[in-house]
């Protein structure tokens, strides 16, 4: 038995032109809880896929339990060595807890003995001190309980090394406490954990050691109890300017709005499931950021404003007139509130339709002459957009499914702007987009902003948020700060819940 369960040295992993891991080194000692911290794109997911044997590194060394890892195809060997509890559930909701624990393995007998299976499951759950009835349907479990079942399944398959990928993202405070104490208890009994989290305050409660990743490299190792949070944050952010190509750096130069600039959007919205109400007053030509990770509420607020969530109370005043319910996407678009959704493929574009079709989807009425669509006007508009937004394609009749991510995002932006909205809500507008397109996308928004477009930008990327005049930071349904001119470090630590830590501990 080796002292180190994982030993990685100089690991490199490339995907096409992008380097996901760039000389990463780290060690995880047997029996410790190891925290893994890093912003989006730092290489956490790639590292997890390598630790679980879904991918192999291109160069460098990787020792698992002191020896070379098993072949990628030997799934059983991997399952016995490492288990990962992902953010999304991997249990079958309509089967019982016991069946899920033994899914695919049962008892190697021809017929299943339910009594024996349930007894075995009960014994296993009891041995790990997890108070859940094996006959319960997984559907009826809470999020925290389901997570415990996943951990139990991992342990049951023989693994004593468990990766928890942002386990607290969807948990409420009491469930987090439970998870923390259960993890600490299991560690006492010799289980090793790799704990990935966005919430820095949780790290000292759970972890012994911590590794910070940035740009595919380990930038900081240390004792989780002793490292000051400020040092972790600065390691996450780094000194090098990552977003050079963004126009965002110019935001400081934006002249102050004239005092008589009208307020285009005034909102006081309390969304179900979020503790704090959104208070917003957005003036024409202003950019307000909603910062926060998934589950923070920032996205919910924006969706409620755009009419995609109906469970809210309060008031939205758009262009001086209070909006009437039902406030749905259709009425929102009609009243001049446009949304750029975060998932281009799933919710943004119609992949089977052309660029021209997609770009005019919200504004078809404006392109209709008497009965039919004025095709010439529509083509002119689409061609104008193609030139303006710099969409690289060989024809506007090309299907959007064939375009690259950056170009798809430009089409989507063109589509959102085609109805001449007075407020544009952007959800992670430059996520998964190449650097050059990132700059163009923010540039286009900036041009419209100068013409008086009010912008709300939802993001967890400091580079994107630097584009905003002021930023509200949300953590777990609460607004922790609203400020303009926040530094990258201030933003990151606020989003990681650093400001909350005094209350929680």
């Amino acid at each position, binding site marked *: 038995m080796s002292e180190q369960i994982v030993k990685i040295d100089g690991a490199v992993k490339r995907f096409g032109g992008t380097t996901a891991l760039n000389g990463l080194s780290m060690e995880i000692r047997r029996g410790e809880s190891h925290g893994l911290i890093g912003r989006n794109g730092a290489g956490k997911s790639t590292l997890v896929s390598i630790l679980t044997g879904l991918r192999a590194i291109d160069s460098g060394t990787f020792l698992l339990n002191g020896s070379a890892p098993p072949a990628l195809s030997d799934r059983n060997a991997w399952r016995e060595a490492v288990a990962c509890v992902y953010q999304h559930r991997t249990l079958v909701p309509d089967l019982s807890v016991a069946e899920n624990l033994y899914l695919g393995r049962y008892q190697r007998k021809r017929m299943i003995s339910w009594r024996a299976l349930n007894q075995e499951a009960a014994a296993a759950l009891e041995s790990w001190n997890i108070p859940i009835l094996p006959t319960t349907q997984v559907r009826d479990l809470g999020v925290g309980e389901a997570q415990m079942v996943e951990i139990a399944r991992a342990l049951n398959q023989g693994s004593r090394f468990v990766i928890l990928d942002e386990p607290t993202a969807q948990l409420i405070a009491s469930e987090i406490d439970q998870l923390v104490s259960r993890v600490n208890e299991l560690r006492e009994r010799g289980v090793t954990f790799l704990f990935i989290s966005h919430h820095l305050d949780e790290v000292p409660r759970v972890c012994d050691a911590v590794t910070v990743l940035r740009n595919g490299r380990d930038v900081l190792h240390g004792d989780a109890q002793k490292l000051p949070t400020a040092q972790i944050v600065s390691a996450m952010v780094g000194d090098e300017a990552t977003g050079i190509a963004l126009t965002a750096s110019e935001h400081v130069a934006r002249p102050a709005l004239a005092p008589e600039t009208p307020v285009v959007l005034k909102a006081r919205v309390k969304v179900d499931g979020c503790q704090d109400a959104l208070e917003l007053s957005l003036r024409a030509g202003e950019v307000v950021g909603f910062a926060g990770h998934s589950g923070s509420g920032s996205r919910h607020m924006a969706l409620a404003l755009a009419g995609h969530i109906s469970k809210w109370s309060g008031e939205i005043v758009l262009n001086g007139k209070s909006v009437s319910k039902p406030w749905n996407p259709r009425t929102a678009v009609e009243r001049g509130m446009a949304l750029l959704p975060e998932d281009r493929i799933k919710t943004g574009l119609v992949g089977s339709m052309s660029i021209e079709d997609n770009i005019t989807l919200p504004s078809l009425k404006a392109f209709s002459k008497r009965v039919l669509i004025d095709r010439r006007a529509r083509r002119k508009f689409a061609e104008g957009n193609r030139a303006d937004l710099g969409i690289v394609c060989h024809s506007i009749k090309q299907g959007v499914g064939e375009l690259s991510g950056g170009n798809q995002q430009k089409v989507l932006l063109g*589509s959102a702007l085609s109805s001449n909205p007075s407020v544009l809500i952007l959800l992670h507008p430059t996520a998964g987009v190449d650097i050059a397109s990132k700059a163009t996308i923010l540039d286009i928004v900036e041009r419209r902003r100068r013409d008086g477009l009010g912008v709300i930008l939802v993001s967890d990327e400091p580079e994107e948020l630097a584009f905003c005049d002021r930023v509200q930071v949300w953590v777990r349904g609460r607004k922790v700060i609203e400020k303009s001119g926040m530094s990258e470090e201030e933003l990151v630590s606020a989003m990681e819940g650093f400001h909350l830590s005094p209350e929680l501990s």
Partner: protein
Amino acid sequence: MTHSSPITAGAVAPKRVLSDLLQPEWAILPVLVVVMIIGAALNSAFLSYDNFYGVVQQASELGILTMGLTVVLIAGKFDLSLESTFGLAPMVGVYCLLDAGGSGLNLADSPFLALVAIFLTGALIGAFNGILVVYLKFNAFIATLATLILLRGISLGLTRGETLSDLPSLLIYPGEATVLGAPVSFLVALGLLVIITVFMSRHRIGRMLYAVGGNPQAARVAGIPVERILMGVFVVAGMLAALAGLLQAGRIASIPSSLGQNLIFNAFAAAVLGGVSLNGGRGTIAGACGGVLLLVLIQDVLVLSQVPAYWINATTGGIILIALFISKISGADKAN
């Protein structure tokens, strides 16, 4: 469909022309030609005016039904019950009018009102299906399967299994009359083909329909009233099915309780052969009509080449499979 492959302009242009020709709706043309050559070779009567007259009449009835189904499919939904609407709507129209077998309602004397009743019935049935599928969010397959059985049952119940005959001439006319050597039903179908094609490609609601079928969430983000559009689609499909039923009733000058039975399967086969995607968002009315023509021609060739009547169904099924296979290897079925 790969969404991520970046494409450089220019280099792909010649390939584009080729892929345009391989569009699902065009892939059916060579197959049509082959079937016609085979038909002409097997039986000289195939090329006769009388034979084509019959083929065109049948194709028009199935075609109008298929147009309705295609609009529903493009919007991403399903309606199995269209064939029962096909049978029931003309029946209700006639019942409003006739003292048929002593059980009619005898509501009005005007055959024109009966015509209105036929379309109204189609629209109402469509709206009923729409409410089930769109607002109550029932699975479209099961919900319209249930209405398929329900409506066919009503047809049977109303007629007690008998055939309605002695239809007023206004109701027979569209299905039976000839203008300039062509059946009126064909002219009606042709007119609808043009109107719906223009509507689908050049009216904003037509484009919205493709968007709703291609990606309902994206359509919603763009402010399109998804539910209302889908309701409209079901209503229109019901009315088209009612019209198709009226045409067939006119051709055979009677309404048997089984009018339209099993026709929906032909409509589905025709739509898919014509490149309409069962997943929504893809396909054209013209393509679907090509599929209809192919199917009707194949059946005609089989009859003319004296395939025993009892084997026609089995042969048709086999040929549909072969046609699907051809479109698979020619790459024309990307849509499905």
